């Protein structure tokens, strides 16, 4: 197993290097930062000095070599906008995103497993139909629209919740709810369909022939066997949340990594863009390895 993790990690490092290379050159295509950071009437000398200070006067391949050299010393560059270590900026924002992602994905998975299982236990029942309709609606509603309507109704209209920012628990409610919608909707559908096939499988007959209680059959035997596809989809959804829920974080002013990323791109804060991508990519690789290991825990037939 450890050799498996080692192998996966080394593959991941290669991918991260590839990704950083790509990002490095792509960000430089967005334009010259000095156009943004210096006044419009700045002199050519001032621009040249700014470029020299930030190492932007060198040819791009040279800059890249410098960047790689600094990476080896764990120097990830300076933020132009905030004038401090780019990695510090990224690592400050990342926990905010993680908290949001963790709560949203845990809650929606747990809820979806419950709703999906109960729906599959009695297919065609009223509960099943309600679950199907709500989950479909959840999976297909555009999150930015729900977020804006939510702000209009609960923050502006009813004045129950804050419009944006962080601080109190009330600030969590709308972002979490909006982030949960899609994962919940998709997962209910996944849980329901895998549970339906699990409940029709032979070992469930055995469980019934053994005289097990109904809950035990549904949650002990069928659900346990349905978890693999659920973990796959939930992991995929978690990945997209860890990546920074750009839209939701921007709308609710949540100081997460998604918002930081989009701001840095607009501001041509190259070092920060690169650092945020390094952070999220690493997190996603770790997450993927964790999911693979979870497979082996859930299904004894899977061994690495």
């Amino acid at each position, binding site marked *: 197993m450890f*050799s498996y993790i080692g192998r996966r990690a080394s593959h991941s490092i290669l991918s991260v290097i590839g990704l950083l290379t790509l990002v490095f050159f792509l960000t430089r295509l967005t334009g010259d930062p000095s156009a943004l950071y210096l006044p419009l009437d700045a002199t050519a000398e001032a621009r040249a000095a700014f470029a020299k200070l930030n190492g932007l006067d060198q040819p791009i391949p040279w800059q890249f070599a410098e960047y790689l050299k600094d990476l080896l010393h764990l120097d990830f560059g300076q933020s132009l906008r905030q004038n401090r270590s780019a990695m510090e900026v990224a690592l400050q924002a990342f926990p905010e995103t993680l908290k949001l992602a963790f709560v949203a994905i845990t809650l929606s998975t747990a809820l979806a497993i419950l709703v999906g299982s109960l729906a599959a236990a009695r297919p065609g029942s009223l509960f099943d139909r309600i679950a199907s309709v709500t989950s479909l609606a959840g999976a297909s509603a555009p999150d930015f629209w729900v977020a804006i309507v939510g702000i209009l109704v609960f923050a502006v209209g009813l004045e129950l919740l804050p419009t944006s920012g962080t601080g109190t628990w009330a600030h969590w409610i709308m972002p979490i709810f909006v982030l949960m919608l899609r994962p919940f909707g998709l997962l209910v559908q996944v849980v329901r369909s895998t549970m339906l096939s699990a409940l029709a499988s032979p*070992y469930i007959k*055995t469980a019934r022939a*053994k*005289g*097990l*209680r*109904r809950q035990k059959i549904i949650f002990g035997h069928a659900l346990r066997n349905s978890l693999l596809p659920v973990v796959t989809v939930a992991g995929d959804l978690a990945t997209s949340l860890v990546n920074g829920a750009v839209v939701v974080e921007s709308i609710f002013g949540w100081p997460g990594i998604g918002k930081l990323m989009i701001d840095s791109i607009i501001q041509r804060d190259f070092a920060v863009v690169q650092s945020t991508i390094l952070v999220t990519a690493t997190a996603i690789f770790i997450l993927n390895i964790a999911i693979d290991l979870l497979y082996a825990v859930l299904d*004894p*037939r899977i061994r690495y």
Partner: protein
Amino acid sequence: MKSAHDSILKGEGPILKIEGLTVDFLSNDEPVRAVDDVSFHVNRGETLVILGESGSGKSVSTSTVMDLVDCPPGDIVGGSCLFDGTELSRLDAEGRRNINGRRIAMIFQDPLAYLNPVYTVGRQIAEVFESHDAARGKQARANAIELLRRVGIPEPESRVDFYPHQFSGGQRQRVMIAMAIALKPDILIADEPTTALDVSVQAQILDLLRDLQRETGMALVMITHDLEVAASMADRIIVMNGGKVVESGLAQEVFSNPQHPYTRRLIGALPHGEAAETSHRRSTEIAGATLLKVEHLTKEYVLASGAFAGKRTFRAVDDVSFEVRKGETLGVVGESGSGKSSIARILLRLNDPSSGQAIYAGENIFEMCGKRLVAFRRKVQMVFQDPYGSMNPRMNVRSIISEPWAIHRDLLPRSNWKDRVAELLDLVGLRPEHAERYPHQFSGGQRQRIAIARALASEPELIVCDEAVSALDVSIQAQVIDLLADLRTRLGLSYIFITHDLPIVRHFADRILVMKQGKIVEEGPTSALFSAPQHEYTQSLLKAVPKPKWLMSTEAPRAVPGAPRPERTRNGSMAG
């Protein structure tokens, strides 16, 4: 047996009495009547065999007893199931739970599918105790270990923590049996318990069931399509066909003097040793030239290397040489894991061999590539065990059969495809209008006929049948074998017929190879091999074919010495 007679003499009523049971299955059209006015009873301690082919309603009727029929699509139209004075159909969920697993237990055909793959066998056995409040925790685990020991699992203390996939097929069935007898039920229902097993393993499992029955005095209801298994187990027998009971009585009487035409036909299809010597299914002359010559074929698999073990290799096929002549049927017999299917796959170039060569019509198969390989693949076809799995469910029969012509363009002009499909369907005993149907709309035997038609479509010279009839009912098996024999005579085909089922090859094969652990242990003409088997393994295979219970006089004393028949641990009132 003794116990059965005892209970009849004591005037006890039957433990289970089913009367007028009728079950429909709802479909889009008319509901299908799966079980039609079926009545039977089971006495304490006896073995009742329900004999019938697939679709005869035998499994549905016993599943109804356990309340395992899903409603819908199932619909229990009428009838009563009286178990020890309780009407089962009137029980609520909790009452039902008290019967299932505790007083009536069931084992199934395919233990791999019927065991939960994600839990250890120990946990699954312990669950029976826990859900019926008979034991918990450590005690339940200890009981599970004891049960595993009883059913003959070696090293039960460590194997108790193994998962189902880590056991062999026979051991899995033993685990199922352990689970079923955990609470010493009054009735054990065994639904085709040995159908998926090798013949020697089958014999062991049947022995185990007999022993357990003697120990616990439980009634055994055994469902099977296998007449030999039926004869070897049954005190009484009922024969089902088309959802109805067509015959019932004491086993020996039913077998020696079948009344109903269906039973007669069924028993007529049973391969009898004497008749085989003059079998019309063997080819009359085998003077043909050598078609295929296999020399020193070896296939090694590299097993995954563990953290502390180096690379290990496993020889699936070990230095195998044989030849097939034109118009000949070569039977390859062996139990699962003997390497017989590996040979088939290698010869079809589905897998590559580790070493050795196979000369087909003067050319080494393993060196063919490009056009030559395509031409070779046209001439050698395969019929698989599971016709359902080897057909694309979204293609209809016409496209399945005509696919070879789409691959081998020069075989047949497109304009003739339709007629040729009809012709082939006719040849394998199906109707031309079947061409527009899909695989799931056919029975197992019909699907195997389609598979044969598909194999014939490319006008092959050699057909490799890998357990081609193993999944079929006895009478269907006979029909398919007849068909293959007929096609051989008419089209001059050769067969490599791979099977674990000895009686079948006895009828059909001209020559037989017996394989064990990748090696050929014995080879010879069919009649010689059956009348005077040389190798110990062949002898044990032949012996493992079940013998009728009424002829097992030598085994009867086994029950007597030492222990008297154990007292029933529970009386009728069901203490707890």
